[in-house]
Structures are given as structure tokens and as C-alpha cells.
């Protein structure tokens, strides 16, 4: 567990370590994407991998997201374990047929005969002043598709363990990394460990209200919890870690205990993952709830460029704090 680690890594370093460990363990693991080799991606997440594993396993591709994602699907079916890098989550639009109609359905359509053990790593998250085509958090789209697994790590520890589990998984897994978290530091054991997909983690124990938060919103929820503590409200922060498979039990149990819940996610609130998470809680903990489940996500607008405009599009510690106060009758 994190407490046992005697060293800290950034989120980006944890991702790189997971990839390097899996590539050392299994020759069939390879990485492909735009500027992944010498450049190590624009975020420098993959720096050093080319030097250790060479060009045969760290492959720069043309700017052809559909092409190399499709190539990865076929490679995964026939003995490789490719990890595809989609630089900005906004570009998943270009891979949709390969992921939704091909990767997700191959196993089912073939009656379970073919498998697609591949990982798509991509990014999410706003407030980087990158405007509408480089700031979206579109993970909900993949959550909607049977056959895919969707992972949203929120700490360096989870990032390493979940990515290693994703690479070893026999299914196509989409792994979303928040761009703003790459520099976040946290304890990461040097050991070979995995975090199983489908197990939520209670990031903070509390008794008055549950904050279910994903990815970047976990830090926001933890910040809000500190503010709430100051006025005597004890918040529990639950991180589902994977959107599918989803650990419904942990979410429901926490909500039953606290009787109030806010669900936070950086994707669009309308028809987004918060709707599913809220529904799970509202159904599973109905008789124990003292208030309706509150959903908080990105505003229903294309992410604007101008900083003061962009900042109001996503939940913040302050807006979560205010919503929590209201839900606890303390406004």
C-alpha cells in the first residue's frame, strides 16, 4: 500500500515505470504512437523508454490515429500486447471505429475465439489553456461500450498498479491520464505490484458525506474535504479508479454510511459518468439517503480558451465545498 513506499514518484514517472517493468517482463509489449520515441511524448511521460527498449518496441507512428490503433487491434489479436498512445484525449474521435466497432466487439462477435489484449493510453483534463480541441475528458464515450474497460487513475501509486494490470488484461483497456496530474507526486513502491481493475479505493475516511471522485477530481475532493473539516463536516472520498468494471458495492456502502453523496467527474455532466455513478448510489442506497445525490461535472460548453472562462467550466474545491455544505444543510 502507499504508506509502505519509501520513495516518491510523479504521476508521469509512475506511468513510465509501469511500462518499463511490463516491457521487461513481457517481450510482446510494445508502445506505439505519435512522438513516443525520441520525444518521449510532448508530456515527456515516456522519456528513456526508447533508450532501453529500442525502436522495435517504442514506435513512432505517422499522425494516423485510426491507422495505428487499428494496427494495434490486429497485433493484439495475434500475439502482441500493444500499448497505443493517443496524445490528447480529444483525438480518440479519430479512433472510434477501431475501438468501438473492432476492438470492443472482436471477442463477442467471434464467440469468444479472438481476444484483444491492448491498452490505449490517452489524456484528459481542462484548465491547461488548450481550448476546445485539446481539453476534453471524453471517457464516458468508451464507458458506454460493452467490451471495453475504462481506467481513470488518480494517484501515482494507482497509476503504476492499474497500468500494469491493464497491460496484463486480456481485453481492450482505455487508460485516461489527467494532463494536469503528470507532476503530482506520491509514494510508489519499486516492487512489481498491480491494482486490480474494478476495485474502488477510499482515499479519505469520513462520516457525514461521501464524495465519489474520479481522476483529477480526487484531488479536488480531497481539497474540499479539508475545507469541510474546518467547519466540522467529515467527508469520505471514494475513488472508483475504474469506470468499468465498476465497484458498485464500495460506492453504495459509503453512501449508506454517510447518507449523503456528491459525484464528481471532469467529463461533461450531461449524460456523463456522474449520471451512472449517481444512479448506482441512488438505487443501491435509496433507503439510507437523507438527500438526493448531487452530480458535478464539466459545464455543457466546448472548453473555452480564455482563462477566466475556462476556470468556471469544471468543479473546484470551492464549488464542491459549497455543494457539500448545501447538501448537509449548512449553507
Amino acid at each position, binding site marked *: 500500500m502507499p504508506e509502505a513506499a519509501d520513495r516518491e514518484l510523479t504521476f508521469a514517472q509512475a506511468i513510465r515505470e509501469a511500462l518499463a517493468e511490463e516491457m521487461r517482463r513481457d517481450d*510482446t509489449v510494445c508502445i506505439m504512437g505519435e512522438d513516443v520515441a525520441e520525444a518521449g511524448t510532448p508530456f515527456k511521460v515516456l522519456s528513456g523508454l526508447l533508450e532501453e527498449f529500442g525502436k522495435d518496441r517504442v514506435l513512432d507512428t505517422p499522425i494516423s490515429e485510426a491507422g495505428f490503433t*487499428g494496427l494495434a487491434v*490486429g497485433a493484439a489479436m495475434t500475439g502482441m500486447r500493444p500499448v497505443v498512445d493517443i496524445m490528447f484525449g480529444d483525438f480518440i474521435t479519430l479512433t472510434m471505429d477501431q475501438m468501438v466497432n473492432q476492438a470492443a466487439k472482436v471477442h*463477442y462477435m467471434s464467440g469468444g*475465439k479472438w481476444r484483444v489484449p491492448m491498452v490505449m493510453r490517452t489524456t484528459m483534463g481542462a484548465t491547461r489553456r488548450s481550448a476546445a480541441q485539446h481539453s476534453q475528458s471524453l471517457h464516458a464515450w468508451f464507458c458506454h461500450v460493452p*467490451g471495453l474497460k475504462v481506467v481513470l487513475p488518480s494517484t501515482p501509486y494507482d497509476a503504476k498498479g492499474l497500468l500494469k494490470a491493464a497491460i496484463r488484461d486480456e481485453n481492450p483497456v482505455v487508460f485516461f491520464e489527467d494532463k494536469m496530474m503528470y507532476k503530482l507526486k506520491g509514494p510508489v513502491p519499486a516492487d512489481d505490484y498491480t491494482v486490480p481493475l474494478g476495485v474502488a479505493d477510499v482515499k479519505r475516511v469520513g462520516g457525514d458525506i461521501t464524495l465519489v471522485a474520479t481522476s483529477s477530481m480526487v484531488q479536488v475532493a480531497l481539497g474540499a474535504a479539508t475545507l469541510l473539516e474546518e467547519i466540522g463536516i467529515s467527508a469520505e472520498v471514494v475513488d472508483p479508479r475504474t469506470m468499468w468494471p465498476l465497484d458498485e458495492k464500495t460506492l453504495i456502502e459509503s453512501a449508506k454510511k454517510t447518507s449523503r453523496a456528491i459525484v464528481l467527474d471532469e467529463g461533461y455532466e450531461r449524460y456523463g459518468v456522474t449520471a451512472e455513478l449517481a444512479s448506482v448510489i441512488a438505487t443501491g442506497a435509496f433507503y439510507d439517503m437523507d438527500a438526493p445525490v448531487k452530480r458535478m461535472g464539466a459545464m455543457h460548453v466546448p472548453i473555452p480558451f480564455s482563462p477566466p472562462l475556462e476556470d468556471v467550466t469544471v468543479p473546484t474545491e470551492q464549488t464542491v465545498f459549497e455543494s457539500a455544505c448545501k447538501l448537509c444543510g449548512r449553507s
Partner: protein
Amino acid sequence: MTTATQPREALEKVDLWLRMYRQMVAIRQFEAQVNELYTRALMPGLAHLYIGEEAVAVGVCEALERTDYITSTHRGHGHCLAKGASPDKMFAELLGKKAGYCKGKGGSMHIADPATGNLGANAIVCGSAGIATGAAFSAQRLRNGRVAVCFFGEGALGQGVLYEVMNLAQLFKLPVIYICENNLYTEYTHYSETTAGDILARATAFGLEAASVDGQDVRAVHGTAQRLVGRARRGEGPAFLLCNTYRYHGHHVGDIKREYYRSKQEEQTWKTERDPITNLGKWLIEQKLADASGLEWMQTELESEMKKAVDFAVTAPYPSVDEVDQDVYA
């Protein structure tokens, strides 16, 4: 049947020619049964018949090893059979039965079979171009000597992903062969209305080895396919093979009134002058490699085999309803 006066090459290859003849007849008879099942309302969904195009699948697949990979299309029964699928499990799949290749979950447009290297038929036009290229990528990385063949119709020339993967295949020198079956009609539209410029030039622009062949001549298809497969297997890179062919039936079985996009005269000309089975049969007889009664016997034998396979599928049970959510995840 053979005599000493025949050319040496024909003698050496007589088994191959006869096997290809048999395979083409098998596909045609399979499809005739599909037509029958569909019109008798025994087959759910859609049926896209391969009749008329048999020489392409057979000529190409006879140039492959069983362990080589193929990807197929919505008009894919011919590819699957040519790569070694058995008709009974094919029919069972077409009828949605548990005994089918995909336990009834895939149907006509999604036959897949790892045992014969069939990565799956695909109902998205050009949907398998990435998969075939990826299979070639793994063959190269794992050094298992396999090649991958991607079958697609000329309609797929409109999809951008084809050009993305041809570029990747050439950059990585992958053992993949893109087989373009130009049956002249992109569904209900003549390909000339949807295809600008020169088809082969699209492949040569990326540096792929490209060739064009009479897709009704199975010996020509096979010869060229063999050359391209050979160079791919030797690590000399990807290729593109344009096979000019013709679809005798409509886009699908229900496409009966076709005069608005092509004339009956045109259909008749292809059927009488360029039929791949008739023409190979004539040649075999001319070369004294077969006689008419022998070929007829082969046809009758296959007809009864196909009927048996249909009976198997018709009487086979449907999957149990509780299988609906199995195989979503591995």
C-alpha cells in the same frame, strides 16, 4: 486423364487446378444454398452473395498457408470457405445456431476462425484494414513467417484508414497484401462515380508493390497472389492486388430490381463470357486435365455435401438465452 503431350507446368499443377475448381464450385453452391435459405425465410439478417467472384478468394487463399491470416468483408462467405472453413459450421452461424463458428453471435458478416487464420469478416467497409495490418505487424515481430491478407471491395477505397495503414505497412515493411475486389458496384453505385484517378496509383504512391489481374481467371489470380505472398514472406514488404471481378447477384439477396444501376445485358455478358468456373472447366478439358463428366460428378457430389451441411444447420439448436452476456470480456 493426363497424357505425355501436355505441358509440364500443367501436369505439375493439375492437383492445384482441380482443387481450385472444386473450391470455386463449393463456394458457388454454398451461396446458392444461402440464397435458398434466405428466400425461404430460414435465414435471419442480411445475405451478401459472393457468386461471380469465386476466383479471387480461391486464387488468393490457395497461395496461403493455413496459418497465414486473412480478414474478410460483409461479402465474406467465399473468403472463409477458401481459407478452410467447413460449410456446416458456416451455415450454422448464418442461422444463428450455437454450433456456428461464433456460437451464433456473429452471423453471416462476422465469421471468424482462429484454426484457419481467419481473423474475422467485418461489416464495416474497410473495417479490417487495420486488423490485417496489425496481424502482419505481429507476424514480423514474432518472426513466425506468416503473412496477412486483407480482402476488401472497391467501396473501401473511399475510406481514409486504408491509406493510413498502407502508409504504415510500407514504413514498417509489413508482410500484408491488400486485395481489392473491384466488382464494379459500391452497393448500388458504379465505382466510377465514387473513385477518382487510378486505383493502383493509390498504392504505388506509398511505394507498395501493386498489380492488377483478371479476377475471373483463377490461374492468373493465383499466380500473381503467389508472387506477392512470396515477396511479403521474404520480408520484401506489402503489396496491393487489384482483382477485376463481377458480382452476379444484387448487393444483398433482396436487391432484385437492379436495372437502375446496371443492365441485364451486362450481367448476362459477364455470366456467359467470363464465368470463372465455366472458363476454368473449359481450359481443364482443353488441356485434357479433366473431362466433362468428371467435373459434373464433382458438382453433384458438392451439391449433396452442401445439402447435408444445410440440414445440420437447420436442425442444430439455438444458443441458450443465458449465453447472451457471455464472451463480452475475455
